[in-house]
């Protein structure tokens, strides 16, 4: 039939044999390796080697004293800087210091008192900002 003839002419590619050979060659190493890998067998020891006896002091040293020393050491390292700095402000404590204005006008808070409140209200109505309490 003419339709199958044209199909066969497409299918019988003279290069297909070469391709099949190349595929076989590429797979050979993988197959060889899987076949050649002998199962690893190790005989289990009849008795476990005798562990050296550990004295009570050694055990205490490793299990109790060393972890304890590490714990204390790390705690000291964490707390000493803030203790040395002497934390001034505690959240529950009343603020005792004077008012401080960084980057404010020369005469500080008094300037705000001198300024006309009404003028300040109208001066800049497009102000933004946010606030929070803690």
């Amino acid at each position: 039939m003419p339709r199958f003839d044209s199909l066969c002419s497409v299918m019988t590619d003279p290069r297909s044999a070469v391709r099949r050979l190349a595929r076989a060659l590429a797979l050979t190493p993988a197959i060889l390796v899987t076949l050649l890998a002998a199962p690893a067998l190790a005989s289990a020891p009849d008795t476990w080697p005798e562990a050296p006896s550990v004295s009570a002091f050694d055990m205490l040293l490793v299990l109790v004293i060393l972890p304890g020393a590490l714990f204390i050491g790390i705690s000291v390292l964490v707390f000493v800087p803030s203790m040395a700095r002497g934390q001034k402000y505690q959240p529950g404590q009343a603020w005792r210091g004077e008012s401080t204005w960084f980057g404010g006008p020369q005469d500080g808070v008094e300037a705000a008192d001198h300024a006309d409140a009404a003028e300040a209200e109208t001066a800049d109505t497009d102000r933004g900002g946010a606030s929070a309490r803690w």
Partner: protein
Amino acid sequence: MVQVPAGDPFTPTERYEIDKAIRDAETICRFEFSVFVGSSEGEARPFAERLHAVLAAPARSVLIMVDPSARIVEVVTGAEVRRVLDDSEVKLAVLSMQSAFAAGDLVGGVTQGLSMLAEHARRPRMLHAD
């Protein structure tokens, strides 16, 4: 407990830290920053706005007011700043300051808030102006 002397609530190191944070913030975003730490007279928000109004250039300024005894933090931004730094971004910085203050870290909270505000207020670089 360490008693705070009535005079100066900040050590020289802490002052330096806050001053440096202000300078850095101003360098980053070219706005003016000022930090007020102390007790507010009357209502906190109007007081903070009054402080903001007497700054040299209120429209280009950001004022951070911290009242440690009333546990209030207020941030006031000028009109020009607000165009770049909207209130939700300010709120973010305020939240981070709030958590630092609640842990008792006054200076750390202020410096952190300053740097956050400055980072958010940094204007995007104009690549094609024409």
